[in-house]
C-alpha cells in the first residue's frame, strides 16, 4: 500500500477570512486521526473554531506552532496514509458544497493496516476523562494511568495538569519575560517549590542573557494612590478581537455590496395558522421542549430553499454552484458586538424538535466562541431574524459566496383582510435579498410564495 500524504491547510472559515491563528493543536505528531475528528482550534478573529480533518491517517508533523497567524491555504500539518477518503484541499473562498454530514467514523477494519512504528499506547479512558483532557489541552498518551489496567483516571488528568504547570510568582514571571528566561527549566526555591524572582535572576546571570545582578532591577511604575490604573491587557485583547471582527464584517459586507447585484422582494404573511398550531403543540410540552416561532420560520425557509435550488448554493468564478443539501446560516449577534452566521446543517430534513435543539446549541456555542469549521463554511443560504429588535422588515446584505439572504421582521398584529372581511391578524414580513447574477425576480418571488404557503400549513413542516 502506497503511503499517500496530504496537507492539512489553514481553512477558509468564511468569505471574509484572510488569515487565521492556530490557538491550539488537539493532536500531535504520530496520532492516528480519522476524517471528521476535531484536530485544531483556529482563531478567525470572529471566533474560536474547532476544525475537523478531511483525512484519515497519521499526523506526520505539525508545521505551525500555536499562536502563529498564517494566511488561508498555508499548510498546517502533514497527514500520511491519507487514503481514498482524501478530499482535495479546498481552495480559499470555496467551501465544500457537499460536506460530510455528521461525523462518520469508519469501522475499525477500515483503519490503515500498516503497523505504526512505535506501539503507540492507546490510552484507556472514560469519556469524562477524555473530555477533561481535551478541554485542558492534555495529551492522554502522556498521562500515566493509575486506574485498573493502567486506565487513566480523572485524578490522573488533574494531577498531570498540576505537574505540567510551572509555579512561579507574578514578579518571577514578569522578570522572566523581561530577561528572556524560560521558566519551565528552572528549579524553584520558594516555599512550595515555586520559582521566585531570585531564581530567575540567577538563571539569567548563568546564561548571560540578563543584565548583571549588580544593576538595580527594572523600574516598574507604581500606581499612585487613587489614580486609575491602566486596565489589564485582557481587556485590550477583547477590544482587539472586537475591532478585528468589525474589520472582518466590513470586508465581507463591502465585498458583497461591491460584487453582488442585489435585488429585494418582500411579502407579508398571515401568521395566524402558524401561531395557532404552535400554541396547541406547545400547550402539553414542558417549557424546555417548547418550540419558538423562529424554528418554524427557519424550517419553512429551509424547505423552500430545497424546492428552489437556484437560491441555495454559491456563486463561484462567474457560475452558480447549487448545493444538494440546505445548510441554513443563522445570523446570531454576539454580546460584545458583532455578528456571526453559522450553519444549521441539513435544516430542510430535520424535524422541528431536532432543529430547535440545534438552534439553541448553535446560539450558545456561537456566544462562547466554540463553533465548528464546517458550521462556519458550509451555510448555503442565510436567515436573519431581527424581529426580536422590533423591526418590521429587514433588507439584508448577502454573505458571499451565498446568493440569498432571507429576513424576518417582528410578528405584529395588524388589520388584515381575510375572505372579504377585516380582522386583526398576527403578520410577519418576509424579505429576500438575492443575487441577480444567480436568479431573477421570478425565482425569488416563487421562493417567497413557497415560504408563505409552508407557514400557512405548519403541520407539514
Amino acid at each position: 500500500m502506497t503511503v499517500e500524504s496530504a496537507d492539512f491547510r489553514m481553512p477558509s472559515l468564511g468569505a471574509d477570512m484572510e488569515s487565521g491563528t492556530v490557538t491550539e493543536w488537539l493532536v500531535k505528531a504520530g496520532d492516528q486521526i480519522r476524517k471528521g475528528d476535531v484536530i485544531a482550534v483556529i482563531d478567525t478573529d470572529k471566533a474560536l473554531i474547532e476544525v475537523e480533518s478531511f483525512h484519515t491517517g497519521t499526523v506526520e508533523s505539525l508545521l505551525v506552532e500555536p499562536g502563529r497567524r498564517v494566511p488561508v491555504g498555508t499548510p498546517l500539518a502533514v497527514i500520511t496514509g491519507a487514503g481514498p477518503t482524501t478530499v482535495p484541499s479546498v481552495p480559499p473562498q470555496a467551501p465544500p458544497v457537499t460536506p460530510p454530514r455528521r461525523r462518520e467514523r469508519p469501522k475499525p477494519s477500515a483503519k490503515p493496516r500498516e503497523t505504526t512504528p512505535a506501539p503507540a499506547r492507546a490510552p484507556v479512558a472514560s469519556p469524562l476523562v477524555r473530555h477533561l483532557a481535551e478541554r485542558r489541552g492534555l495529551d492522554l498518551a502522556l498521562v500515566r494511568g493509575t486506574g485498573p489496567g493502567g486506565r487513566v483516571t480523572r485524578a490522573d488528568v488533574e494531577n498531570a495538569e498540576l505537574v505540567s504547570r510551572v509555579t512561579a510568582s507574578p514578579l518571577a514571571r514578569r522578570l522572566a519575560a523581561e530577561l528572556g528566561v524560560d521558566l519551565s527549566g528552572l528549579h524553584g526555591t520558594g516555599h512550595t517549590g515555586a520559582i521566585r524572582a531570585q531564581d530567575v535572576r540567577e538563571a539569567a546571570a548563568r546564561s548571560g542573557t540578563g543584565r548583571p545582578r549588580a544593576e538595580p532591577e527594572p523600574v516598574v511604575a507604581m500606581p499612585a494612590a487613587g489614580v486609575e490604573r491602566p486596565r489589564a491587557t485582557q481587556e485590550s485583547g477583547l477590544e482587539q478581537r472586537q475591532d478585528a471582527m468589525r474589520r472582518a464584517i466590513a470586508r465581507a459586507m463591502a465585498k458583497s455590496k461591491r460584487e453582488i447585484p442585489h435585488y429585494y422582494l418582500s411579502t407579508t404573511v398571515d401568521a395566524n395558522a402558524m401561531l395557532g398550531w404552535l400554541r396547541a403543540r406547545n400547550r402539553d410540552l414542558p417549557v424546555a421542549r417548547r418550540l419558538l416561532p423562529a424554528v418554524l420560520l427557519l424550517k419553512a425557509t429551509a424547505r423552500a430553499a430545497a424546492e428552489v435550488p437556484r437560491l441555495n448554493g454559491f456563486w463561484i468564478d462567474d457560475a452558480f454552484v447549487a448545493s444538494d443539501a440546505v445548510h441554513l446560516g443563522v445570523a446570531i449577534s454576539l454580546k460584545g458586538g458583532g455578528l456571526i452566521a453559522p450553519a444549521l446543517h441539513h435544516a430542510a430534513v430535520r424535524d422541528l424538535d431536532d432543529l430547535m435543539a440545534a438552534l439553541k446549541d448553535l446560539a450558545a456555542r456561537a456566544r462562547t466562541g466554540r463553533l465548528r469549521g464546517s458550521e462556519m463554511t458550509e451555510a448555503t443560504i442565510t436567515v436573519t431574524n431581527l424581529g426580536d429588535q422590533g423591526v418590521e422588515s429587514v433588507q439584508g446584505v448577502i454573505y458571499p459566496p451565498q446568493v440569498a439572504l432571507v429576513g424576518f421582521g417582528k410578528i405584529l398584529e395588524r388589520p388584515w383582510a381575510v375572505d372579504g372581511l377585516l380582522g386583526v391578524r398576527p403578520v410577519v414580513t418576509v424579505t429576500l435579498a438575492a443575487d441577480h447574477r444567480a436568479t431573477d425576480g421570478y425565482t425569488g418571488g416563487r421562493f417567497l410564495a413557497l415560504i408563505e404557503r409552508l407557514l400557512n400549513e405548519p403541520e407539514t413542516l
Partner: protein
Amino acid sequence: MTERGTTTYREAIREAIREALLRDDRVFLMGEDVGVYGGCFAVSLGLLEEFGPGRVRDTPLSEAGFVGAGIGAALGGMRPIVEIMTVNFSLLALDQIMNNAATLLHMSGGQFNVPLVIRMTTGAGRQLAAQHSHSLEGWYAHIPGLKILAPATLEDARGMLAPALDDPDPVLIFEHGGLYNMSGVPRPGLVDIATAALRRTGDDITLIAYGGTLHKTLAAADELATRGIKADVVDLRVLRPLDDATIMESIGRTHRAVIVDEGWRSGGLSAEISARIMEQAFYQLDAPVQRVCTAEVPIPYARHLEEAAIPQVIGIVAAAREAVAA
C-alpha cells in the same frame, strides 16, 4: 526615676482632650462614666474637676441616645467628643453612626456636615472576654462617610485628636485597650490623619499592622533581623481611607507582605488590604501575601486561650519566614 517628659498612651489622650477643651469652647466630652469616675480606662480623670459638668458630661447607659445627641450637637455647631466604652457596645449606636453620622452630608446634598469625633476602646489581651474584646474597626472602615483612625504610638495618641476635631466630617478613633499603659517620651512633631507611617525599614519583607498589633509586629521585625531578614513595618494609622501608596511603595521594594490584624480574617480589613495589593502590585509579588489574624472564635476569657486566639510575635515571625522562604 522616670525620664523627663515620660508619658503614657492614656495620659497622651487625656492631654489631647484637655488641649482641645482649652482651645475651642465648642468642644465637649460626653460618655458613660467620663465625669465623676474619670473614665472606664481613666482617660478623662480630672477633666470634670477642671472643666465642669457642662463640658465633661456623664451619660446614661444608652449608646444610641448619647451618640445621637452628639450627632445633633455637631449639626448644631458644637464639636463633640463622644466616648464609647468598647467597640462591642458601639453596636448599640451603629444605627446612629452609620445611618446618620456617615450619611447626612450625602443625603442633604452637601448641606450638613457632622463634625463629630467618637473615641472607643478596641481589642483583646486583657481578659475581658468576648463582649469587651473584639476588634471591629474593620467593620467601620467599610462605611463611606467615616474616617477611621487607629493611633498606635504616643505621638498619634497625643496628636490625632486635634486634626480629627478639625475635620468637618465624622471621625472614629479606635484606642487599643492594651496600649493605655504604654509609656515613653513622645517625639515632637506634627501628626496627620491621612497617611500610613513606615515605623521601620528593611527591604526583605513588608509587615503591615496597626493599633494593638503594631508593637508585636515591631518585636517580630527585631526577631527577624536576628535571622538576617530585614522588614519594613507599615503602621496603617488611618484605616479609612487606606493609604495605598505607602503600602504599594513598600511592596515595590520588598515584593512580599504579611498583614497583621487583630480582627478576624474572613471579610476583614486584612482581606481588603490583600485584595488591594493584588490589584495594584500583583507583578511586584514574589510570594503569596500572608495574613496573621485573630482565630475565628469569640475572644476567650481564659488567658492562655486568649493569647492563643490573637496574633502574637511568634506567628508573625513564622508567616514572614514562610513568605521569604527562609
